[in-house]
């Protein structure tokens, strides 16, 4: 049973890219395309979700993702409640389920959830009331599907068709929910070749089973690539047993102008943010003509408007038909 789609095959929750059809992903991209024009109008709002209450439930710190979700919800005319629950509430002993039940009692229609445990979005989706939709804003190392879709949106705008593309994802694949969702989205959309580039300490076991070709050498990994997707390297990973130092990581995997020449001349460079300049990416590249990093951020709003409106409306018509 796929928790994410209703009987008519429409989006009910958005938890992971896995298991969603190519058609549905294209629907999301097309819907996002129509929302992308909204901020350019003088009135930046559409009334699609008027009267709906959306809760941004963040158990992990986030600036970009939370604010773009909030903006997206507001541009759809929904009421938005931001709840940041750091470790202290769980220290108090309240379980995730109790937190959820308390919020449900406030009659919310949608939860946008970020949590440090893989599978937490699935867990919440399995326990919410039937009319409530859950959007995964990042769960542990598992999935970050709206980030992957805004990346796909950005790629489609620059490259059109996916089938001839070679895409290289560079960095901490092991701990990255972004990478897992990107890989699934690229494979579902039929990308020509998906590569991952990292030292073995940052590649998960049997990584090929995700449908990627692994490389440990940056130049080989990005050779003739159309798209280079850099990942954020968390600072705490740079000391200890995974990597010896920032210095050596930059030496081996830092994306510089010089190394970028190995990719196709029209290759684009992406990063989900926040960037570590001078560690995974050189400022010249990040701010250079090939970088589409800031476009990714604005596309994030359109994609999140698309996903929220689709998920909310499947729930609604479902109830009406009964």
């Amino acid at each position: 049973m796929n928790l994410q789609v209703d009987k008519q095959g429409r989006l009910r929750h958005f938890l992971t890219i896995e298991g969603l059809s190519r058609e549905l992903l294209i629907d999301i991209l097309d819907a996002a395309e129509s929302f992308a024009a909204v901020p350019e109008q003088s009135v930046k709002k559409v009334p699609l979700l008027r009267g709906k209450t959306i809760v941004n439930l963040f158990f992990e710190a986030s600036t970009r993702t939370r604010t773009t979700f909030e903006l997206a919800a507001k541009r759809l005319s929904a009421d938005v409640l931001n709840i940041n629950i750091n470790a202290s509430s769980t220290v108090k002993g309240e379980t995730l389920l109790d937190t959820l039940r308390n919020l449900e009692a406030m009659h919310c229609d949608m939860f946008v959830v970020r949590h440090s445990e893989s599978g937490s979005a699935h867990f919440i989706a399995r326990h919410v009331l039937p009319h409530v939709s859950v959007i995964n804003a990042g769960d542990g190392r598992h999935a970050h599907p709206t980030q992957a879709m805004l990346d796909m949106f950005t790629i489609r705008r620059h490259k059109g068709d996916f089938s001839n593309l070679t895409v290289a994802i560079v960095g901490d694949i092991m701990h990255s929910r972004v990478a897992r969702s990107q890989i699934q989205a690229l494979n579902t959309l039929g990308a020509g070749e998906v590569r991952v580039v990292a030292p073995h300490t940052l590649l998960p076991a049997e990584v090929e089973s995700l449908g990627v070709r692994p490389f440990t050498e940056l130049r080989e990994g990005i050779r003739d690539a159309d798209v280079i997707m850099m990942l954020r390297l968390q600072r705490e990973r740079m000391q200890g047993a995974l990597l010896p130092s920032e210095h050596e990581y930059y030496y081996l995997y830092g994306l510089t102008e010089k190394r970028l020449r190995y990719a196709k001349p029209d290759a684009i460079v992406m990063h989900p943010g926040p960037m570590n300049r001078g560690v995974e990416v050189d400022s010249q590249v990040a701010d250079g003509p090939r970088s589409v990093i800031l476009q990714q951020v604005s596309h994030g709003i359109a994609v999140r408007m698309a996903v929220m409106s689709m998920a909310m409306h499947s729930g609604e018509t479902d109830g009406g038909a009964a």
Partner: protein
Amino acid sequence: MKRIVIRGGRVIDPANGVDAVQDVYITGGRIVALGTPPDGFHADQEIQAGGNVVCPGLIDLCARMREPGQEHKAMISSETRAAAASGITSLCCPPDTRPVIDTPAVAQLVRQRAAQAGYARLLPLGALTQGLAGEALSEMALLKEAGCVGAANVTPIGNSLILRRAMEYAATQGLTVFLTPLDPWLGGGCAHEGAVATRLGLPGIPAAAETAAVARDLALVLQTGVRAHFCRLSTALAVRMVARARFDGAPVSADVAAHQLHLTEAAITDFDSNFHVLPPLRTESDRVGLCEGVAQGVISAVCSDHQPHEADAKEAPFCATAAGVSALETLLPLTLRLVREGLMDLSSAIARLSSGPAAILGIDAGTLTPGSAADVCIFDPEQEWSLAAGQMKSRGHNTPFLDVPLHGRVTHTLLAGKVVYEHAAS
């Protein structure tokens, strides 16, 4: 003295190579004869076992009772009653209670509670180190006197010198050490490190977390000469390592949890916390290797690894849930499934639940030899049934085998000649 005859069953006693339809005669809590009644035997009670198998009461090498300390999960009375309903007459409980079984008083307490309940024999394992902290040796001689049948590490002992000393001391006291092989630094995840954990983004436990520990522990067993038992193997390579060590004459044995013989990492798709177990469910080739180990006798005991939990303990994202399965009630049917799958004969399957574990414990049980205690399990090997959450005897309802067709239903369980369970429909 009460006299009982069990009539017409297929009597299987692997320890004595018995497999024949015959009657079993019991007097005063002991088996007195098979086949021919002793002179002047007049039964006070007859149990009809036609079409059923009559075998020694099952011995489970690992079942957590949660008492003392976690009575919100389960209690000795509730779980020994569930054991009786599952044909199990003897259970080993690991020492990770609260307080830990590292003093004679706690060992005596759990035995007394079980004796009061009267459903099954509870055989505690003492802690190998005080508080299971892996730092100081426990009072092993006193624990043995208080009824502990072995000394267990439960949680891995990182310091090889301390483990060596613990083994030497256990050997001195004639105690078998029960080792849970897990490298503490490699074993920090919650799922097998492989394709499924990679896809779901779950922190992985590599196969090497087990094999590295088995390799070190085997080296120390050879060094110290202690009799050692490896608990809950989960990898095919560890089975081969133990097989090799046994071939070389090392005094080692091994068991496996019944669920490991039927489930793999593939089951955890969708983050169902009922599949969160430790050691984790591994690959299909590991599962096959474990089944072969059981069939060939390298793994001489199948245990339940029973870990009852309250519902809340399983209501969280996968890694945040408590590991373990409520497994007493599926021990026999899951082991019998190996017979249906053609991996072994019925007598060998019963051996893994009776004479096999008895030999590991070095106890006089797990057989129907005349003179031994009349701990008997009678079951219908063909009857299909399934577990429903509301009908489980254990307080823990956390099992991935709810509503799954099972074969082999216990009809009667006798403990020292007393019927402690009788299936209502029989």
